[in-house]
């Protein structure tokens, strides 16, 4: 079990290249302060974000997930966000039914000019996930052989060493 007193939520954000990523970039260049718990994965479009990305994030140690892209009518590819909205509308209900607390998920529209909204999305999500605590129940699903140690320990250890070709530090 993760030590609650030192618990820092790990949140994975899957964002679209055109709006949210640029919005997050704006938040950074505007020097907005926000929680540093979010790792961003940039994709072309929310329509490219498969539900399995969320599953994989939870499998590999995420405590919360953000999915964010262009506002309706703003999609760079016209309709990718509309398709995503339907799919994630269903998937969110599916996860809820399977007992995965929907509070661990944030879906948002953040445009390229909404650096401040991204700051809010990040801070609110991290706060919410911090209150929920670590998602040990999911991380430990594969049994003692895999849950025995912190899934991120190896990342950090490998990142610190010189031969870490796969790892591109996101923090």
């Amino acid at each position, binding site marked *: 079990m993760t030590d609650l007193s030192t618990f820092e939520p790990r949140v994975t954000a899957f964002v679209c290249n055109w709006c949210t990523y640029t919005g997050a970039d704006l938040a950074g260049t505007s020097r907005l302060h926000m929680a540093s718990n979010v790792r961003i994965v940039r994709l072309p479009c929310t329509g490219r974000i498969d539900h399995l990305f969320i599953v994989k994030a939870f499998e590999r140690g995420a405590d919360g997930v953000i999915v964010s892209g262009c506002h*309706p009518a703003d999609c760079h590819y016209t309709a990718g966000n509309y398709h995503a909205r339907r799919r994630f*509308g269903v998937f969110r209900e599916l996860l809820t039914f399977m*007992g995965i607390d929907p509070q661990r998920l944030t879906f948002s529209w953040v445009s390229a000019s909404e650096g401040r909204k991204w700051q809010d999305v990040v801070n609110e999500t991290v706060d919410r996930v911090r209150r929920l605590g670590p998602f040990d129940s999911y991380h430990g699903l594969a049994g003692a052989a895999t849950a025995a140690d912190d899934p991120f320990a190896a990342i950090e250890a490998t990142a610190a060493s010189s031969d870490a070709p796969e790892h591109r530090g996101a923090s």
Partner: protein
Amino acid sequence: MSDLQDTARRLLDEGTVQVVIGWEASRLGARPVFVTSADDCDKLIFDTRCVHNLATFLNPRRVQVAALGKAAVVVKGCDAKAVAGLLREAQFERDAVVTIGVRCGGVVSEPSGLEPPELTSANVAARCPGCDVREPASVDFLVGEAQPEPPVTTSLNERIGELDALSPAERFAFWTGELSRCTQCYACRQACPLCYCERCIVEKSQPQWIETSPHPRGNFAWHLTRAQHLAGRCVGCGECERACPVGIPLGLINRKLQQVVHELYGYTVTDDPAVPAPIGAYATDDTQDFIK
């Protein structure tokens, strides 16, 4: 019954089709049969034991069935929905298959038995009560007598309501327990008329999105994906659950998603192939309450 046999016989005699896919009686109960000769059409039955969704055999990747030639398939209402699903998704042309619809008053949950059992609330398949296609409309032939409504039983909806009332942690514990028995044999997929992919995502290894090891983590990924890929497509025939060798209540998940696509997008799965499925379509004013 003779209606069914006569129709099949005529189709084979006239050479309209080369095989009729229907049910026969065997010592272990009703089972799918592939009749290629008009002389064998008296094997064909339809009764309360005919639970299998024969649309499954229309998957063009079942090459050994396709090799028999053009097929006529006997369909209950739920099977007709599956045929419509395959047509909607362009798996074959409408005139590539002949559908013989049977009027259905419900089936039992298991096909076993030497005689067709009377339907009761104890033995009726979970999907049958409340069925909306007991006389499929989209078929080429409709045979058999009009049937009474299936008996009412404890509905899937009630069980779903019970689960919905639990806390997320309790539901997670419930499903972890259920899924821990899964061996990832994929019988649920193979029995599903709409799981027809040439290569299922679980069998793709570069990258390996779904862990094939049947620990609960791999099993969650598999069952979340199976359900999500069938959202708005599942016809609710219950074959996945019946095929499961370890009794995982997949019908609950499928029914839940039927409820969800109905509530969110007003969609009900139908035997009309012209109605588009909800995933893959969209409306600009779709609900987005869940999006910040």
